[in-house]
């Protein structure tokens, strides 16, 4: 049953400072729930499970919009939509996995409204952009009336849908460094159908290798295979410094099986997810290895 939205309050701040003050105030009651593009929140509201009774509308805050391109990376304002991301020329060129992930979030209608900070704050283990942020060592900038703080994306999730953020903090920006020159990266989402699906497994890999092909930087980030988006750290370690070979790929795959902790749920099964994640890793490594075999 739908929620009675007429009973839900909405605070509409004019500036980010107003928004932060509103987040800080409790007035003895529950805090405000921030709303950005609303594409996930309204699914909950329409299903009759509102996460709160009072909301804070961030959509009109210009301070939270825009993509800043620097020498070392890009900084996305919290309200940057997936449409903005997939259309951005620099992102497409330098962070192709991020552009690819943005193009696979829902469909156009969702991409036009859904925001990067919304995807982060929503903290679904299946969030499409999250493995990309993790694999690229992104940094999340949060702010409250008490000041600014930067949180490494790898430290952001403390458990299932739990964030290392104080209740009065808002995400204001996400900083994503460009991978080192010569690094290879890939994004892959496996769902029930090509569009409009929630992932069974979602993956982003970044790999940089020395001239002899031995990797010196590896990031293997996964969604939908654990309560949080996570890096397969043992698999990464097994690859560091190892000459590309079928044996090295098998070792990484074996390590991956221990790194992840998928479950049976409405979208897939544990076994399917382990197999598919292993296949995705193997394919990614074959692709990155190929380059060194040709050289």
């Amino acid at each position, binding site marked *: 049953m739908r929620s009675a939205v007429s009973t839900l309050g*909405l605070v*509409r701040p004019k500036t980010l400072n107003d928004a932060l003050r509103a987040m800080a105030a409790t007035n003895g009651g529950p805090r405000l729930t921030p709303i950005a593009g609303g594409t996930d929140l*309204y*699914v909950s509201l329409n299903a009759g499970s509102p996460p709160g009774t009072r909301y804070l509308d961030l959509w009109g805050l210009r301070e939270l919009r825009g993509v800043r391109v620097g020498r070392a990376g890009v900084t996305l304002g919290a309200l940057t939509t997936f449409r903005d991301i997939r259309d951005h020329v620099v992102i497409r060129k330098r962070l192709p996995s991020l552009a690819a992930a943005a193009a696979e979030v829902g469909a156009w*209608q969702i991409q*036009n*409204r859904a925001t990067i900070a919304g995807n982060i704050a929503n903290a679904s283990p299946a969030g499409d952009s999250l493995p990309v942020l993790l694999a690229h060592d992104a940094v999340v900038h949060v702010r409250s009336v008490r000041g600014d703080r930067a949180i490494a994306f790898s430290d952001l999730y403390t458990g299932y849908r739990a964030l290392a953020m104080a209740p009065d903090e808002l995400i204001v920006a996400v900083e994503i460094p460009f991978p080192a020159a010569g690094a290879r990266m890939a994004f892959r989402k496996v769902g029930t159908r090509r569009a409009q699906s929630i992932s069974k497994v979602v993956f982003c890999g970044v790999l940089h290798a020395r001239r002899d092909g031995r990797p010196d930087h590896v990031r293997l980030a996964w969604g939908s295979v654990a309560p949080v988006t996570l890096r397969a750290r043992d698999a990464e370690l097994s690859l560091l410094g190892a000459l590309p070979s079928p044996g090295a790929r098998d070792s990484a795959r074996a390590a991956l099986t221990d790194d992840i902790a998928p479950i049976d749920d409405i979208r897939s099964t544990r076994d399917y997810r382990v197999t598919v994640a292993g296949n995705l890793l193997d394919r990614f490594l074959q692709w990155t290895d190929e380059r060194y075999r040709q050289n």
Partner: protein
Amino acid sequence: MKRAPATAKRVKREATARPEPSVAPRRPRNGAAARMTLELVVNGTRRRASVPPMKRLLDVLREELALPGTKEGCGEGECGACTVLIDGRSACACLVPAAQAHGARVVTVEGLARGARLSALQQAFIDMGAAQCGICTPGMLVTSMELLQRCAGRVPGEDEVREALAGNLCRCTGYQKIVDAVREVARQRKRGARA
């Protein structure tokens, strides 16, 4: 596809809010404002309505502004039946709070025809059999408008149309005729631009 009823189009009078329900809406105990005066431009006409700020844009259009062309399908952003353009970009009106449409330019399916004259896109849907039961058609048309605007005179490839319309589900046509109709209009537009 049936023609949009003329009464639903270009309504000049300001929309008045529906009569207050006999039981006043429950207000949250903390006293947040229950209603806002929403002002927006719908299909080129300035409209105003007094609405709860979290009311879905879909319900504002259908109930307050008497524009029932926009349909509700799934109510969770999957099917695209409620697609409207907000400042030129397609969105599921079932996922948008009224407050976020304040000051925006909204286009619904009622805004595509000029009076009794259907748009080229609507005509192509009819001519090419791209509509069957019709429930998805308003959303299909509106998303296609965004695609055609983005293409700006270029004819999109078949895959491109399918990707653009991936958020509009149709259980009747099998999509091919819809894709064909959209590409046909893009071809017409290209010829028109050259002439």
